[in-house]
């Protein structure tokens, strides 16, 4: 498994993919965090879906990571795209047969790729945390937000827990991407379906029937990233509920995709 992971990291560290992804991460992390402070007095809100995050919230010990937790869902979409593309392209390039000739343990290939992509996602999250916290620190004085509680014991705890929550959420999104890549065997189809579902279909469903937010996979993963805070229309979706429901989606999807990957003929 580790050989597969190390080999996969050779592929993931190529400049186009690495710099392109990190560029997107830096852009969206700084954008989400900046808007929190720049639009702090805007009546249209300064967070996702027009939510207002005021000075009182931002000056709390968790203030430094408000932007980071908001960008968590978006990092998840990026992870979904990377995981889906890296998995499905083995079919479209025909390289899966090379992999299986050099490493016949199919589950080993799957886990090795997963480990490598998790490390890639982790690097992405670290960069995002640094950028969004730095942006918050830089912009807070201008928005008249006190930062004296941000890096105390409670502040450091908030940074740590938010980091863990974003990691869980992003890995969840990435796993869904990998599952779609394995099932659809085409990067374009896997990414299109994943992004379409998470960004459009789920939002439409929630707009029609708000209680569905408690049961949709993307919503659960976004709620995990924000630590169980209310993000949408349904109040009171707890962190543990999101963790259980999101975990079931991810586990069932991963189990089905792994089973098919192990059993399916490689005919292209």
């Amino acid at each position, binding site marked *: 498994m580790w050989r597969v992971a190390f080999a996969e990291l050779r592929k993931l560290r190529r400049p186009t993919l690495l710099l392109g992804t990190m560029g997107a991460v830096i852009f969206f992390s700084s954008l989400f965090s900046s808007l929190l402070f720049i639009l702090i007095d805007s009546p249209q809100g300064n967070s996702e879906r027009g939510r207002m995050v005021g000075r009182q919230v931002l000056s709390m010990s968790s203030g430094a990571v408000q932007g980071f937790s908001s960008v968590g869902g978006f990092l998840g979409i990026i992870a979904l795209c990377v995981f889906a593309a890296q998995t499905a392209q083995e079919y479209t390039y025909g*390289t899966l047969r090379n992999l299986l000739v050099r490493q016949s343990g199919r589950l080993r290939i799957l886990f090795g790729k997963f480990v490598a992509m998790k490390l890639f996602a982790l690097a992405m999250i670290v960069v995002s945390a640094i950028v969004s916290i730095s942006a918050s620190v830089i912009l807070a004085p201008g928005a008249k937000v006190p930062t004296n509680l941000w890096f105390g014991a409670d502040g450091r705890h908030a940074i740590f827990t938010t980091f863990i929550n974003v990691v869980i959420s992003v890995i969840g999104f990435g796993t869904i991407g990998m599952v779609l890549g394995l099932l659809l065997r085409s990067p374009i189809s896997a990414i299109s379906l994943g992004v379409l579902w998470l960004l459009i279909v789920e939002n439409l469903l929630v707009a029609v029937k708000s209680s569905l937010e408690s049961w949709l996979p993307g919503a659960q993963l976004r709620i995990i990233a924000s630590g169980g805070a209310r993000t949408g229309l349904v109040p009171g979706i707890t962190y543990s509920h999101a963790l259980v429901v999101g975990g079931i989606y991810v586990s069932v999807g991963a189990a089905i995709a792994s089973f098919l990957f192990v059993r399916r*003929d490689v005919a292209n």
Partner: protein
Amino acid sequence: MSHMSNTAISVSDLSKKYGERNALSHATFEVPLGTVCGFVGPNGSGKTTTMRMLLGLISPTGGTGEILGHSIKHPEKYLPRVGAMIEGPAFYPALSGRENLNYLATLGGFSTDKVQGLLEQVGLGERAKSKYKTYSLGMKQRLGIAAALLPNPQLLMLDEPTNGLDPEGIQEVRDLLRTLANNGTSVFVSSHLLSELEIISDYLVMLRKGEVVFTGKIQDLLHAQQPLIIAKSENENDLTKIVEIARSAGHHAVIRDGAAHIEGPKDWAVTLNKAAFDAGITLSQLSPQLPNLEETFFEMTGDK
């Protein structure tokens, strides 16, 4: 299951069905260790399907097989000693030739130190840093062969390795395969260039519509064929008359590539020469010969 086998490949009743279609039907053959074995058959005859099953990429619907003494149900036991390129080369377009081989070397647990040597061996040393997507078809093919050589294979399985290569490249591949075989590597190679296979192969497995129609030494196959008499006339219209003369004497004859191909012993060439002279036909060529692999292939597969 014996681990000290004298065969590189041994399959028995191996079958693969896709729905109602038999891609391979009860194939039984053996490839001795240390030989170059040609694997021939028309398009769709089941060659690639067979190779895929031997490499553990697809599961057979029936029968058994062994590679280097291990069942094909356990590819992990023999694949570390097998090099393969099937259905053409397939690599990551954004990585260079060297990065692609480094990737596979890391995956297979081989040293990446040998990668540059392999690239030079297949003539890609100077383009090692170029991205795969910039390679010509011939260069891609060479990279595929280099990848197949990564594990110092005991068995090399190549599917159409000379596709896209220029005559010089074909000659190089031929020499490479011969050298590998001389050093004890067993080679199982499919190609539509039958004249090439005839030169390099000791052994042959021939498929037609998913069934094995011949397996054995290539010389045994050729010597078992009816000798041919090739006759050409000064006037091409006389070829039909030559065929009629042959058929009336009970010999099978066809016109192919501007010559009459007549099955019959070489002594009969004298009789034909006299009969043609009596019929007012001037022959420009009359040569008895054994059929080559290409002619035998067409004869056995009914492709021409």
